[in-house]
């Protein structure tokens, strides 16, 4: 059974939506003076997402009223939709998902199972030990992969997990992290910028004022892909691993450190302008221009020891799970730069 306090903690659950319906809450009601605390908390959720680093919406049961928590979540979804910014959408979804993660980490096992089942997960309590490790949960491998396949850390690779008869055995912390990913995607899918055109004018104005008030925090630069390759870099020549990393950057997906290093070193080595590479990183939810510039200049050998770095070779990339599978040319080379140069030469010759 999920209580009101559960719904306050996890306002994205279907039961929370039912509660919202039961309270006869609508977009129009947001504008009534009685609902001011809800609209205020909704704005606060978004501001927290934009200003906190790492992004995270707060939750303090002593400070936050449960009903306000439940109702302010859909209100925030409406506001974020009205802001109509891809960056704000991603950042907000991440911040809400991280809030859920921190609450889930310390949640009852049974409750975690109940919440996971709301997302269609085939999960059960396992409670087995092997060697020194304890595994509290068993999750169907398809549900595991749907969420973990985009994580790049070695420990998340399926091959480094205990898999028995179709189930992956996990700790509570692991399940909380995987649920964070499921919740993040779910929230992103609920935010629809097209909604903006049908929302009451007052709501759109509130959204615009968030946009203006936090313009500094909203890093969204319109840029086009073609311009990136104006410095003589040809996307057709990229090996599959770099295409993947490059695509992840363009989509603003999270990349682990090794992935960022690899794509940066690669692009620098094939002659891309460092400023263009910085632009590529702008879409990341945790973009910090000063830090990114520093790191890129470091890899380019313009700082520190002066060493110009090259990207790791193929088998290192495989070990780190950055090789998406080889094409015919990959099988003949050992380094992604060789791949690029070969293709380039082939085209020229």
């Amino acid at each position, binding site marked *: 059974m999920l209580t009101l306090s559960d719904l306050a903690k996890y306002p994205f659950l279907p039961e929370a939506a039912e509660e919202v319906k039961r309270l006869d809450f609508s977009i129009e009601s947001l504008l009534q003076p009685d609902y001011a605390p809800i609209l205020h908390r909704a704005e606060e959720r978004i501001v927290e997402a934009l200003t906190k680093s790492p992004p995270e919406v707060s939750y303090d049961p002593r400070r936050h009223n449960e009903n306000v928590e439940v109702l302010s979540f859909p209100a925030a979804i409406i506001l974020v939709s009205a802001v109509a910014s891809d960056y704000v959408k991603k950042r907000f979804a991440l911040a809400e998902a991280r809030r859920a993660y921190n609450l889930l980490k310390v949640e009852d096992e049974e409750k975690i199972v109940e919440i996971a089942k709301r997302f269609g997960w085939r999960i059960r309590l396992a409670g087995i030990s092997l060697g020194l490790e304890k595994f509290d949960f068993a999750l169907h491998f398809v549900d595991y992969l749907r969420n973990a396949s985009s994580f790049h850390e*070695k420990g998340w690779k399926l091959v480094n997990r205990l898999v028995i008869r179709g189930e992956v055995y996990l700790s509570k912390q692991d399940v909380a992290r995987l649920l964070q990913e499921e919740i993040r995607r779910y929230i992103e899918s609920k935010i629809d910028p097209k909604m903006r055109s049908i929302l009451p004018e007052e709501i759109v104005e509130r959204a615009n004022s968030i946009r203006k008030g936090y313009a500094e925090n909203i890093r969204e630069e319109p840029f086009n892909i073609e311009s990136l390759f104006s410095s003589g870099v040809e996307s057709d020549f990229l090996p599959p691993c770099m295409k993947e990393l490059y695509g992840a950057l363009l989509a603003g997906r999270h990349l682990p450190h090794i992935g960022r290093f690899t794509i940066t070193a690669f692009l620098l080595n094939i002659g891309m302008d460092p400023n263009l590479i910085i632009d590529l990183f702008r879409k990341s939810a945790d973009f910090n221009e000063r830090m990114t510039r520093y790191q890129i200049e470091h890899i380019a050998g313009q700082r520190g020891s002066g060493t110009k770095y090259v990207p790791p070779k193929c088998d290192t990339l495989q070990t780190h799970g950055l090789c998406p599978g080889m094409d015919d040319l990959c099988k003949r080379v050992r380094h992604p730069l060789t791949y690029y140069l070969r293709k380039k030469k082939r085209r020229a010759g």
Partner: protein
Amino acid sequence: MSEPNNISFIREMFSDFYSKNADKIEPPKSIENREFGFSLFKENVMVRHKSFARIEDLRDFIKKNVPSNVYYSSAYYSFPEAKMDEKGWLGSDLFFDIDADHIPTKCNKMHDSWACKSCNFEGRGKAPEKCPNCGGESFDERTWPCEVCLEAARVETIKLIDILLEDFGLSADEIKCSFSGHRGYHVGVESDIVLELDALSRKEIVDYITGTGIDAVFHGLDEIRSGSSKIIVGPSLDDPGWRGRAARGTYDFLLRASASELKSLGIKKNVVMELVEKRDAILESWRRGGPWNTVRGLGIKGWGKIIQRGASLQSANIDTVVTVDIHRLIRLPGTLHGKTGLLKISFPVSRVEEFDPQKEAIAFKAGEVKVYVEEAPELRFGDEIFGPFKSQAVTLPTQVAIFLLCKGAARVVD
């Protein structure tokens, strides 16, 4: 398949086969949602984006057009005949290809050959990266299915099936096995469970099966300090999943590992000596907690390397590209392979150990044909051995003759 004479002869034989054996052509699940592709003898072109509502329509098409190869998509589409990006992908079977081409065997140096496309320079074994004569990068490769290669592919197939059953929890009737018609095996999973897996998830499954990126520290290898002493713990032989596999692979590796093999892992000389000298004691130690503390100077890092090497013995060598591709075209079971004239034939998982491709994939069972053979290694068909041949005319059973004709190693003699 160079000479027009040969091609029309092969086509005639294929036509005859399909007219009598169309019922052998197996319909894939939900045939109406699959894309079909065919390569044709005449134009040597690929016809794609075909679809058939019923298996009878497909069989009629094959009988009428006599393609050299028949393929179907592992994917299900709303509109299989539409252009690629308009087909409406609904899901895809989980598919594995095990081909001797990807498995290093000692014999491929003996029977495989290549010729540079630009200067005709020839060599044996697998084609090099660059032609040593002219630097060309494109080759005509001729590979032969031999007992050793096919057996190597079977071993990999058995390992794959074990992982699918034990680790992924699939049931034997969800797994479809077949001989590819050339040098390997196909294993397909037509289950709703795997249908919607995206390419990224399939890549993770590939890495699981090939043991790529495995690290023993995630499989029980650990160092525990108590007071001033350290003890190492590790996986056990009967542990489930990769944990047990890694332990069993390590056992096998240490059973046979030579000093030079151990040295190549970057293990120090004195440790290598001890590993080799204490071999019996180490193998014995698996009964009691494992060998982790039996070798002086061998820490968690060194064991990690040994376990990784051991794990590689337990992984299955599959073609990684095929499984990740969610739009792949696959040879249809019950049809002939254009490069061999052999049948792609399905068999139940339970028969994988006894299945004899060189007997059961024979499509042409009657008659003899006289051919002139340029060059071919010794080959087995059924219970008989043929060849080796070099520049000679010989009368052979139809299947053997067709095989050599398809391979381009022989020509028809009137």
